[in-house]
């Protein structure tokens, strides 16, 4: 059985190798980044397109109708939390893709919508990929497939951490450095848990 656990440990790692690297890179970047207000973001790039506003649509219906007409790539329907009105009472909403957000302002009186997009930097792209899970509302098949890959990798990550400990216990449990390493890891986790709880 241990031979099979070792084999599965290897297979799991090979099958999720790419996303494990992404998890690692995103984790390092998350620590190195400055506080959110100081992070440099690419500018939004805007354009205006004509849009005839249906007279009896609710804000949510209107946002959805605009989203359907614009069909921004790799986005899902506008989430409720993003739908609001600006100081001029224009309807605003945002939709999100792994490549960045799209901000839409419905200019009802002009019969137009202003569409502004911002393209994520590479690390932002990796960050969004690492958090794009099966809860994502993006129907595009490419993103759906990625969410399944992400789901698979979450479970393999846990499996590898548990099976790795198991494989140590059945192969070299007496190795002092391994004991020290495991104990230090547990102690650090306990410390972080206690001081931040």
């Amino acid at each position: 059985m241990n031979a099979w656990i070792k084999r599965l440990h290897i297979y799991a790692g090979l099958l999720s190798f790419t996303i494990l690297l992404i998890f690692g890179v995103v984790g390092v970047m998350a620590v190195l980044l400055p506080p959110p207000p100081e992070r440099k973001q690419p500018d939004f790039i805007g354009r205006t397109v004509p849009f005839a506003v249906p007279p009896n649509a609710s804000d949510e219906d209107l946002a959805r109708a605009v989203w359907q007409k614009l069909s921004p790539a790799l986005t899902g329907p506008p989430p409720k939390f993003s739908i609001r009105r600006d100081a001029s009472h224009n309807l605003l909403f945002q939709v999100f893709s792994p490549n960045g957000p799209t901000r839409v302002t419905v200019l009802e009186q002009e019969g137009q919508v202003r569409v502004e997009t911002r393209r994520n930097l590479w690390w932002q792209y990796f960050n969004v990929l690492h958090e794009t899970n099966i809860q994502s509302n993006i129907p595009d098949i490419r993103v759906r497939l990625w969410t399944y890959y992400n789901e698979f990798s979450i479970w393999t990550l846990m499996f590898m951490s548990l099976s790795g400990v198991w494989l140590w216990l059945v192969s070299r449990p007496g190795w002092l450095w391994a004991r020290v390493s495991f104990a230090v890891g547990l102690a650090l986790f306990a410390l972080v848990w206690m001081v931040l709880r």
Partner: protein
Amino acid sequence: MYRFIRNAHLLIGLLSAAFVFMYGASSVQFAHRWFNVQAKAEERTVTIGAGAAGARAVARELMNAHGLDGELVQIREKPTGVAFRLNRVGTNYEVDYTAATGVTKIRTMTTGVMAMLVRLHHVNGVWHEFAWINVAAGILALVSLGLILLGASGIYLWFKLHKERRIGTILLAANLIFSLTLMILIRMA
């Protein structure tokens, strides 16, 4: 070389196992929301010195006299005094201080185990005033670096296992073709 890499893989894996499991378990929660992660709230009222000069002075007195701790955020000046939050990842305090009387309402919100795992997952940056968050972020950076090293050393160790080379090559190629193709297609969309 093989022996060194094998030992390093084992030591890094054991050192980071608990954190990696935390990342995995919290990711399951993100993806499935199987557990209730609502914080439990309790309220109490204490009296501290009246006329304190701002949120920092109030926070300091609450830390010294009433055992509160955490990062001072979301400060709101009010006609009657000041309100703010003290965040400590697993426990957050909402404080409402009345300057005239010193009466201070404290709403303490504590989380369960899964919510704590989720919040630990979100710890980032080393700019926090609450130093322990910076310490945790530093450890998490090392664990993330460990993940990269585990991946790289794992590939080496697998390649040296000759009997697993054929099926491993198929699995690795399948992974790379699938994931890199998707990453490129999504980025180019």
